[in-house]
């Protein structure tokens, strides 16, 4: 990737993260996840996609299309919402990572 991309790549990889949403007590009953951007490191602020919250909205996804609504406070989601954020690697062993189901991915030979 051309020299022009060095700083952007560093910023992109430093800021990138994944966000997963699950229900308290049912982490394996299906979790929703997406990508996100770390806006601030101290304290940690992350901006991610809102699609993973629709199953938790108390008022259902219909509230997202209400014309004048530009934002919803955090308590718009049910109390059983559990969020986790994961970002770039450190020295930790892989064992510490919760094993999540793998999607039906395979790598067919071309």
């Amino acid at each position: 990737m051309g020299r022009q991309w060095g700083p952007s790549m560093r910023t992109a990889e430093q800021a990138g993260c994944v966000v997963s949403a699950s229900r308290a007590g049912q982490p394996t009953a299906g979790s929703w996840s997406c990508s996100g951007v770390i806006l601030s490191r101290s304290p940690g602020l992350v901006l991610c996609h809102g699609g993973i919250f629709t199953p938790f909205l108390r008022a259902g996804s219909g509230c997202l299309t209400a014309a004048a609504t530009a934002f919803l406070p955090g308590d718009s989601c049910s109390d059983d919402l559990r969020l986790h954020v994961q970002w770039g690697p450190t020295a930790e062993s892989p064992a510490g990572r919760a094993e999540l189901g793998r999607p039906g991915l395979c790598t067919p030979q071309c």
Partner: protein
Amino acid sequence: AGLEPGPSSSPRGRPLQPPRPAELLLLLSCPAFRAHFVRLFGGEAAEHWHFVSAAPDDEVSEEEEEDQLRALGWFALLRVHPGQEAEEERGPAVAVAPLGTVPKGAPLLACGSPFGAFCPDIFLNTLSRGVLSNSAGPLLLTDARCLPGTEGGGVFAARPAGALVALVAAPLCWKAREWVGLTLLCAAAPLLQAARMALASLPPDSAALAALLPPEVGTPPNLLLQVPGPPWAAAAMLVECGTVWGSGVAVAPHLVVTCRHVAPREAAKVLVHSITPKSVAIWGCVVFATQETSPYDIAVVRLEEDLDGVPIPVPAEHFHEGEVVSVVGFGIFGQACGPSVTSGILSAVVQVDDTPVMLQTTCAVHSGSSGGPIFSTHSGDLLGIVTSNTRDNNTGATYPHLNFSIPITVLQPALQRYSQTGDLGGLHELDHATEPVRVVWRLQRPLPQAPRSKL
């Protein structure tokens, strides 16, 4: 809480930190994004468009699809709970590009994790590169190819270096069951402005977080003329002939070339829309269109008045397979937006008797882009006229990234002759292409040199 970032560009596959708990502060959207989304993809167009993170044929419940569509323009601001070990500030802080400062055609770098949290060891922060293809307010399109799970990922500019331009709103777009190969983005600046306003209405400890949101860098566009796209893109025209519309390119102040299947009949009246430097519509008349039997799908429109201020592109004389190219066309949005720019490489130059007769590129080309120009991204020279992309008749799948164009070297001598003398003779020769050229454009294998009889 600090977020101990990993060392930059560390080798992929190294063990990750364990996931860190977080809390939802806000769900937020950008009203202007949603308004443009409804304008461009709503109404009658809605039935053609699919944004779910699955192919149109995959099983997705109607309710789930409805949920995804409603949430498409929504994002979430999270606060990450502090970790055990002391964290320190490291890594480049994110800065945000003001809306409107990244021109169409500008290179972009997308960073997301395909399949989200399922395989972060392998897919965390995967990169994809493309250009800003089109924009309507904060609704942006890029041809950087993204996959399900990258929703919410950041999209960064090369200039200003590392500026956050947008977040991925919908990585997969399908139109009329065709994979479009473009990714829908929401500009970051208006989104963060919405976050600041929303935080201000929350209890003080949350409101204080607004000060931590990243600043905008560079000069806000209202102090700039709207940042222009690449100068050569101005030569792309929208061409309307009756109920049919497509793209075209100005090859002289009074001449526009398009496809025969856009403007099929000689003497037909055609309305040509030029978007840059100003939006004007000029009537013209088809002075030449190849016969149906000609492999070259070309028509030439003479305008009733000259195009003013439109830079006429320099026709290329040579082609270099592998060179970086751009296609500019009105596919996707047609009249609702200016032309889209997609990037790729010149993937093949097909020759007959050492003469280029067909170009292929990897740019994303969609219906409505026919007649549009291919440019060399570096020189801005006009390389050819797009005529078609590819459909597999067995599966019905369309491949926007395999498309065919007529080399400008095939057309230039005849266009020059007509432009200077009004003589259509050179253009009529396009109706008499040789059989080997016809075979190529029928996508058949060129005939082997017929063995000569010994007699």
